[in-house]
């Protein structure tokens, strides 16, 4: 057993942390959140230069072929800084969909561009009913000769407003099928939704959108399978980002509890505060050690159906618990836009929904347990 990261991984973590500390302090996070684009292009290009996007892609497609654990390190550090970017939607969600389901030609066409920071991508899965299940995918794709005509509406599509390409989960007569659609295609209209995460969630409407047959990712009817293949790693990556947020929330709150004086003593000396903070620490520690195990299982190619759902349900609840207590300990100042802890409080709620809420994962887990 070896429960430590290796030297290269420690260095990667350090370089991501240093870059984000320099480039994206919390004031900049708020600026990005308040901008229409919700995105900083200069930073994106710099990140690509640093090589963060190609790490997990196979060498055949210009990547480094490194294990997925390194992506979780990057995500964790981004989570600590509440860093807003299309990294998750582009590199993780869409990158993994292409890796799992894309043709050799599609991988050659897209992965190097993603790695170079030249393509921003969005995955359009959810619809009006807000179902996480296969049956929730109803957007129609009707075949017409060699082409398909897409009609319907997608919701909660991250970063569609800045995306070059959108991977759309649609329904053909063969079942759920994925299509790579240029965001500029006539008939595609995109509108930002107002979300608690102040992130780029969008409504994307498809009005007779003509898509060539070779834009299909995977076989007709294979879409759900591909999404399920992508989900474990992407879920774990999101959990890593959330746990980065937990760690930072605890660190900020600890510092605050040591410096804030009431009744002539730092409030961190009061047992009420100490016990909240001990519970926060236990919630974080148990979750982060488990994350390490689950990502290791995925890198080893093991089946982690139970573990991934257990992890997401755990992290959903603990991120909310930790940030709620964190704001409470900060007192009134913690509720202001100006103060940083609120960034994490909002993200805890926003990220809860990504790739399955707690109820969804509990249900999935209960199934896997034989209930």
């Amino acid at each position, binding site marked *: 057993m070896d429960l430590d990261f290796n030297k290269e991984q420690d260095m990667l973590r350090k370089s991501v942390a240093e870059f984000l500390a320099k480039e994206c302090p919390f004031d900049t996070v708020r600026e990005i959140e308040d901008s229409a684009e919700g995105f900083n292009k200069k930073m994106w290009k710099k990140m690509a230069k640093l090589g963060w996007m190609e790490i997990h892609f196979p060498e055949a497609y210009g990547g480094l072929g490194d294990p997925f654990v390194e992506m979780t390190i990057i995500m964790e550090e981004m989570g600590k800084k509440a860093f807003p970017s299309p990294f998750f939607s582009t590199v993780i969600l869409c990158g993994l969909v292409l890796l799992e389901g894309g043709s050799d030609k599609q991988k050659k066409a897209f992965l190097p561009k993603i790695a170079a920071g030249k393509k921003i991508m969005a995955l359009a899965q959810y619809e009006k009913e807000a179902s996480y299940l296969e049956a929730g995918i109803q957007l129609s794709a009707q075949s017409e000769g060699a082409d398909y005509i897409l009609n319907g509406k997608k919701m909660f599509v991250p970063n569609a407003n800045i995306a070059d390409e959108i991977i759309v989960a649609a329904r053909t007569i063969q079942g759920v099928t994925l299509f790579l659609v240029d965001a500029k295609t006539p008939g595609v209209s995109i509108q930002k939704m107002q979300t608690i995460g102040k992130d780029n969630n969008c409504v994307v409407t498809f009005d007779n959108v003509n898509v060539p047959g070779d834009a299909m990712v995977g076989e007709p009817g294979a879409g759900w399978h591909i999404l399920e293949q992508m989900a474990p790693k992407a879920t774990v990556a999101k959990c890593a980002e959330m746990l980065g947020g937990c760690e930072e929330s605890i660190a900020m709150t600890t510092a605050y509890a040591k410096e804030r004086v009431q009744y002539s003593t730092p409030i961190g*000396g009061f047992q009420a505060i100490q016990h909240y903070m*001990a519970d926060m620490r236990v919630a974080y*520690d148990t979750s982060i*050690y488990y994350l390490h195990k689950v990502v290791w299982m995925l890198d080893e190619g093991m089946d982690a159906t139970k573990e991934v759902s*257990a992890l997401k*349900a755990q992290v959903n609840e603990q991120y909310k618990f930790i940030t709620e207590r964190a704001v409470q300990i900060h007192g009134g100042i913690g509720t202001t836009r100006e103060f940083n802890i609120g960034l994490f409080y909002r993200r805890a709620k926003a990220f809860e929904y990504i790739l399955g809420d707690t109820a969804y994962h509990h*249900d999935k887990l*209960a199934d896997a347990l034989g*209930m």
Partner: protein
Amino acid sequence: MDFRLTKEEELKKEAFEAFFESEMKNAPPAFGNGGLEGVYDTEEGFEFHTYMAGKLAEKGWLSMGWPKLYGGQEASIMEQVIFDEVRGYYSAPGVDAFAVDMFAPTLMAGASDEQKARLLPPIRDGKAFYCQGWSEPDAGSDLASLTTTAIREGDHYVVNGQKTWTTGAHRAEYMFLLARTDPESRRGKGLSVFHLRMDLPGVQVRPLLYMNGKHVYNEVFFNDVKIPAEDLIGVEGEGWALTRQTMNFERSGAGGFSGAKRYLEQMIDYARNTTRNGQQLSKDPNARRKMAEVFIGAEVGKSLAYKIAWMHQKGDFAGLITAASASKLFSTELAQKLANDATEIMGLYGQLEDDPDAPLGGAMSDLYQMCKGATIFAGTNEIQRNLIAWVGLGLPRLKFK
């Protein structure tokens, strides 16, 4: 990062599993659902405990982590955690935690060579059973405020006072006692550790029955009890340092999480085979959610236990204090959650104890009661939270007057 067990560890694990799988078939009905009440409540239960201690000693597993110098195997901490995990899964007795996990390390740290030679072998061989003479009516979490005295008179010490919550005092032959050898001293100063025979004149054990009527805990009274001076362990007046040194910060709690897993398996089985309101209980959304939550608790708890082993292996002792406190409070609160969730899922049946209609042989209504002790003993969960806040987060310590 690599979570895989080594070949050797895998083989050990298989050996532990085979042993407990086969030996637990010998458990008498009186052993019931195991735990402290299985061991201490009845004579048959305690006999099974001693039987298992003998079997474990034959394998050398009682002393697996001890130095070879004392007849141990110097097994790695990882092996010990695996052993705890497997034993916890089977809820198996045989390891007298007071003797093996607490007093033996105290002896190794502070006893004379003569004492080590005299007292360690019976523990190693599963022949000596101990109780712990720490808590008093007015010294619980604040152990250092204890008032039982042991005053030197010639070649012996005379003990007067009272201990309480003494687990298994009615079965143990020996106690390791923490008492005040300097009656003028306060708090941690002037305390000493003793090895005490429970059959000495003046030792009186009174049962302190648990809420379910089971006999696990006791009060122990000392009335001019004479301990031979040779049974003072370590230096007179230095007992507090010796005690703190062996407060078992390094325990992983692995057995608690695997025990929860075992009960979870039984609950899933029960839910699949029980029909209520026209559907399988396993399809009930409330039952499904609760069992998913218990699984999650057992899973994340297990990774904490293994992290503790890893910290131990690496010598990260600051991390260990926080992690061991976390594991104690997390595992005991998980047991409470499991017991409460399980008895809720059972509906009306959840109230049945040792009753022919009780699901899981009444294990969950038992646990619902016995687990309440666990969040209190061995350092209340509030004390564990203090430690995490002080050591793990660097928050200011409580000031003592």
